[in-house]
């Protein structure tokens, strides 16, 4: 991903396996980072099937989930991030 210059936003997307739903979420996430958060976020996609330990560490129960770890407060976006404008609003952009 191409938005690692500064770390105002720390975002992590958790998916479970390479399912169509995961694919939708990943592409939406990438789009969001590219178009609205360019240069101001660190973003990471984590596949829980590969990294099951992470599910417990990050308190994930639903997938896909986008976690905004910083700035506080923590937000969890559950779902395929279908409505980008809603996410942008919630992120306070």
């Amino acid at each position, binding site marked *: 991903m191409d938005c690692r210059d500064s770390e105002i936003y720390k975002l992590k997307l958790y998916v479970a396996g390479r399912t169509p739903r995961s694919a939708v979420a990943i592409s939406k996430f990438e789009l969001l980072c590219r178009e609205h958060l360019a240069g101001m976020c660190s973003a990471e996609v984590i596949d829980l099937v590969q990294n099951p330990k992470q599910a417990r560490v990050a308190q994930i129960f639903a997938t896909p989930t986008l976690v905004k770890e910083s700035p506080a407060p923590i937000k969890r*976006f*559950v*779902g395929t991030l279908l409505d980008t404008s809603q996410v942008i609003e919630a992120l306070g952009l």
Partner: protein
Amino acid sequence: MSKELSKTRTGVSGLDEITGGGLPQGRPTLICGGPGSGKTLFGMEFLVRGARDFGENGVFMSFEERDTDLVQNFASLGFEIDGLIAAEKLAIDYVHIERSEILETGEFDLEGLFVRLGFAIDSVGAKRVVLDTIEALFSGIPNEGILRAELRRLFRWLKEKGVTTVITGEQGSGSLTRHGIEEYVSDCVILLDHRMIEQVATRRLRIVKYRGTSHGTNEYPFLIDEDGFSVLPITSLGLTHKADNERVPTGISRLDTMLGGKGYFRGSSILVTGTAGTGKSSLAAHLAKSTCERGERCLYLAFEESESQIIRNMKSIGIDLQPYVEKELLLFHNVRPTVFGLEMHLVIMSKLVEKFSPSVVVIDPISNLISIGNQGEVKSILTRFVDSMKLKGITAFFTCLISGSKDVDETEVGVSSLMDTWISVQTIETNGERNRVLYVIKSRGMAHSNQVREFILSSKGVQLTDVYVGPAGVLTGSARIAQESRDRQAEREYRERIDGKKREFETRKLAAEAQIAQIRSAAGTGKGTGKFYRRGRRKKAVAERTADRSGSPEAC
């Protein structure tokens, strides 16, 4: 069904009996109940016992309590969760859902949860899983439609994994669980209940459904104490117990004599009724002492007096129970009946019996139980208790206070028909004093005495003496003593009269003999010629014959 359903033993005492072996293996079981009914404890005990006693590791997925809190809370119950986690026999995963952080943006599923659970199961090789309380998801996840579909999938997935799962659910109004989870868990549903009856808390458990197997259908009382969960399926067990021929001495030799010479039957039930202060507890103390003297254990359940009070009071009649308490042969359990409900008393009593395994149990008195239940309830409790004691071959001794106005053949709790031996102690008031009498109303299977005995509480314990039965009627106490001394006096006088007569005859006999001797000597001086001598000899023989006759008193 041709094949018996395989079951997983819970290790929870009593539950495996009423479920016929445990929870359905490899399937989910729903445990529902109100707040504080013991759902979480049940789940944790299921896992801890599995890991500790049955070699089946477990995963506890908590949606409500933090793992650190769980470890702490259960440490007080003697569940060393820390140790089990360190030994990789148990895994706890706390799923924290903060509704305010969550925003729904499109489609999702609970695959994250599946991954987490799957990882935890694999990490310890779990055979048992507890989800406590999965309904927390309903308040955390905005989309109920997705959640319901995912729960259905979750339970199917758990079944495929072959893990035995316990799912807890909060009881809702009018339904088993608030969110209707019972819809997805169809194999086994257990309801825990914690209700107040007359300000007394009672816990009960009921198996609502258990597919493919027979199970107990009653409501069973259960207990949560320092050993965890225990269900005591004490129902009327039926009359299948074996009768024992062995005898248990009563501790009072005279009472043994009254009971066919040997005492009570082992495993029988004994009832002692009497009005206040008739010495019922003293009979109980004698039995307790004689039991402990033989090196057997005795459990003394007292509803009226404290342990030290009983020991002090019994010392006054020469029964020292203290050494037996110290030797752990005698165990007192003193509790006011009003502390718990009736069912709970039964559970506690049964648990004590199980733990202490006594050969004699004393309940002093049962009449007090009536203060927390009606006659029918008390009778039902006692019937079940008597049955379970008989099944274990334990001699049960009950005392029951009856009010003076009542008929002696009637107990307030109506249990006399349950009892094998029934002894009545009464006081009889005469001449300004009250005296105790004892008699055996019935004693099944032995030739018991039909006599009334006077019952004396002395510093050497209970003593039984014969009552005075004579022309003056039945006499006890000082009247008996007075009558006895009058009798002794009369006998002495009679004897003296006889002796006087005997002496009189003796004197007369001696006088007669002296007379004969005199006659004989007179005849001896008159002998001269041989002819006369011959005649004299005949005369002498005649004289002797006459003397014999005159020597006997009738001739006088």
